[in-house]
């Protein structure tokens, strides 16, 4: 009897939770965007366009994830794009100029990304792991990484990439692009990692309150270095996928990542101040961003509007985040989160 009376209330609570979650509202926005695009351009949902969108979403989501890992710990990483650019060039150069096999080139590329992350992490940890120092440090290292990239390449792309490598960008498994598979696997790993591993919880604890984390015995400096290493790795994966998709390693890979690296996680419900993340939300945020930009192309809207609209979207995203926080504070939900 008691189970019978409990069951509906439990369901109701679940429903209530779903309604309140950011994924619900972002999902609604995605459906709305799709309907609008479908009404205005019926061929928007062709298999070809689906593949294009899926690939761009995959890369955008990984770029967002790279930023989300740092946001989780209360920092910022404005060098995500610069790391991506350097990884793309190293991977491409290894194959084109030095003739290394695909696997080794990718491994060295990703190792470069991790190394860049460790450099960021070490400098930031040394100057106190605060949000301000992470912003300024990565601003400076971004310039160093981009400079190395341009110095190595003399600003010319690597074109002669092996077919097997390009296949990563063009191939499909079970009629789903390989890029999408890779993204899903990485997102699941990190989503689970933040939920169930002590490392993930520690990063979130640092983001929630550095002082409290330090006092409860978390080595904040070590956590900073590890989270930047992971961020560099994910930025590297995004870059390798992008180079595979483009079929050439351009030095300007990543140069336009800064804005949507913040936008994707923030739209998806990750808190800018740290301590709260949403990996699924980051994918949903990436879908929103790509639908809007891809939709604009389909609707023949001038590319001149791109910057303006992207800026407005991210401002809207943080405004919503802000309202959400205020509401949560009012309802006392925020207390229970910690």
């Amino acid at each position: 009897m008691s189970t019978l009376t409990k069951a509906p209330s439990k369901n109701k609570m679940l429903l209530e939770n779903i309604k309140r979650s950011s994924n619900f509202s972002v999902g609604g926005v995605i459906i709305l965007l799709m309907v609008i695009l479908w009404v205005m351009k019926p061929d928007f949902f062709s298999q070809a366009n689906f593949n294009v969108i899926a690939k761009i979403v995959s890369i955008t989501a990984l770029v967002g994830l790279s930023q989300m890992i740092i946001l989780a710990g209360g920092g910022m990483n404005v060098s995500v794009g610069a790391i991506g650019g350097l990884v793309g060039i190293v991977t491409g150069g290894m194959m084109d100029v030095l003739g290394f096999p695909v696997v080794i080139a990718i491994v060295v590329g990703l190792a470069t990304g991790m190394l860049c992350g460790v450099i960021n992490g070490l400098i930031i940890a040394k100057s106190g792991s605060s949000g301000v120092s992470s912003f300024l440090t990565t601003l400076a290292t971004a310039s160093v990484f981009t400079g190395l990239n341009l110095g190595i390449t003399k600003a010319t792309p690597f074109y002669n990439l092996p077919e097997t490598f390009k296949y990563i960008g063009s191939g499909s498994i079970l009629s789903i692009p390989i890029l999408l598979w890779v993204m899903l696997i990485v997102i699941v790993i990190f989503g689970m990692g933040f939920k169930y591993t002590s490392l993930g919880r520690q990063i979130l604890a640092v983001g929630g309150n550095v002082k409290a984390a330090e006092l409860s015995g978390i080595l904040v400096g070590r956590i900073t270095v590890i989270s930047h290493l992971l961020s560099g790795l994910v930025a590297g994966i995004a870059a390798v996928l992008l180079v595979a998709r483009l079929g050439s390693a351009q030095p300007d890979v990543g140069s336009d990542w800064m804005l949507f690296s913040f936008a994707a996680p923030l739209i998806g419900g990750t808190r800018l101040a740290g301590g709260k993340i949403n990996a699924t939300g980051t994918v949903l945020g990436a879908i929103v961003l790509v639908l809007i930009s891809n939709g604009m192309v389909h609707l023949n809207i001038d590319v001149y509007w791109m910057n303006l609209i992207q800026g407005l979207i991210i401002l809207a995203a943080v405004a919503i985040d802000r309202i959400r926080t205020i509401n949560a504070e009012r309802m006392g939900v925020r207390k229970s989160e910690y």
Partner: protein
Amino acid sequence: MGRKLINDLIKKDIASVTIAVFVISILLTMVTEGFTSAFNLDSLGRTIAITAIVGFSQLMVLSIGQFNLALGSMAGVTGMFTAALMEKYAIPVLLALIIGALIGMILGYIQGLLIVKTGINPFIITLSLASIYLGIATVATKSEMYSNLPAGFRAIGKASVFHVPILFLITLGVAVILSVFMYRLPIGRQILATGASERAAYFSGIKTSGIILTAHSISGLLAGMAGILQVARLGSAQLSVGQDWMLVSFAAPVLGATILSGGKVSVSGAILGAMLMSIMINGLVLLNINSNWFQAFLGVMLLAAFQVDRLRLSFVMQKKI
């Protein structure tokens, strides 16, 4: 001994950057051929002048412990707008300059208003405004370029008085006004107090929201000025004006003894910081180093500047204790 020397230099605040400027200038004079040529010094003077104003613009918001990432876009918008006023609408140069400066100020004011009213993280606001402002300029001009600017306007960027570029004199004038504003007027002290501790300032009866608005408005005004002067120097207005200023805007004030966390600024230090950055880049050009490496170099410089900032801060802390 080495430690003591470092501490002594830090104690003198801008001594370190002054010494660096001298040492590097002497080195470049010995190593390269053209460094002291009239042509090079003239062009260097103009670069320093504009870099210094860019540094002032960032210094204004650093003084309250915030950043202005939209500074480059503000400069671009203002430069384009002023050029359009003169070229398309044939508005007299002086009037166009005044309107342009006002536009820069308004862009800064909007930024301050959003920060004060919404409570959203200032970093994200200035980041998205950078994109929005550039977007507005792109949409309004369709990436057009304005290159038929009046000769009177271009003279600002080209002419010299007694071999000193007018641009440099303008920068000195701005520096004097800014120094008086920051160090002599009550509002300047209030800005610095807000930067040192917003809470403490608020409880001592300072209207901190008004102070934040003022700091961002002046930052916008200075960014706009830098944009207009850069257009005058180049002789044409294009959207790329200001797009690569972010790094130097931080480096110039921080190298020159301004503290990142707010509450302490040095106007003359920012000029010296701008000098150091400009001379070093000039040196790289004279040494025939591929320009692709410049960006890496700038990044290392900025990192070094932050380390100096950190040393300085820990020194200040020690002294207080």
